[in-house]
């Protein structure tokens, strides 16, 4: 079975531009989460979606938005890019959703975004 896939693999954008990152979860997984990982740091939680609804949001500005489609794939959008948005963006899917505990998450390889 295919794992979590993300596209594109790498992306270079200019400050002020907008970017859309895509994620396809493992077949049967209904929950998708997005993380930002700056070089040398741990992943920072951005969003979680389950059954097409936002279930959690991290401490990121409104320039960051996401959505989940009926097939459970997801897009992360970032507007008005800043140099500080340069990072590895990780998508993770999980089979179930729980308000309190953490279902085992399966991470994709990430999209490396460079903002110049």
């Amino acid at each position, binding site marked *: 079975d295919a794992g979590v896939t993300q596209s594109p693999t790498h992306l270079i954008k200019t400050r002020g531009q907008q970017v859309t990152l895509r994620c396809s979860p493992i077949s049967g997984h209904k929950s998708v989460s997005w993380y930002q990982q700056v070089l040398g740091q741990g992943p920072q*939680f951005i969003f979680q979606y389950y059954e097409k609804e936002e279930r959690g949001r991290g401490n990121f500005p409104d320039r960051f938005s996401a959505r989940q489609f009926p097939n459970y794939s997801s897009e992360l959008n970032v507007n008005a890019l800043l140099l500080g948005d340069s990072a590895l963006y990780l998508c993770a899917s999980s089979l179930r959703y729980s308000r309190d505990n953490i279902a085992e998450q399966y991470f994709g390889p990430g999209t490396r975004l460079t903002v110049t």
Partner: protein
Amino acid sequence: LAKTTQPISMDSYEGQEVNITCSHNNIATNDYITWYQQFPSQGPRFIIQGYKTKVTNEVASLFIPADRKSSTLSLPRVSLSDTAVYYCLVGSSSTGGFKTIFGAGTRLFVKA
């Protein structure tokens, strides 16, 4: 939100047991503790998860004391391929919904 604190780095030799401790003093009652492994240029990979006491699977053990303010990941007989960053993760719920907090991670370097 429960935050985690881990040692920045650790060194070990092949065949040794490695124990990595994570502090999470503000862990909530319903939070679980999860550990992930990450290699360069890859997404994190799930290792083990627990709520209290001890959990063991085919690759690791997780020890959680009664107060749950810390946890210890134990890797038996490490090999060179275990060189990676290990993250302690505590799930946290809030009025705003689901959130997860990764720590800064522990860089484990296994030497021959």
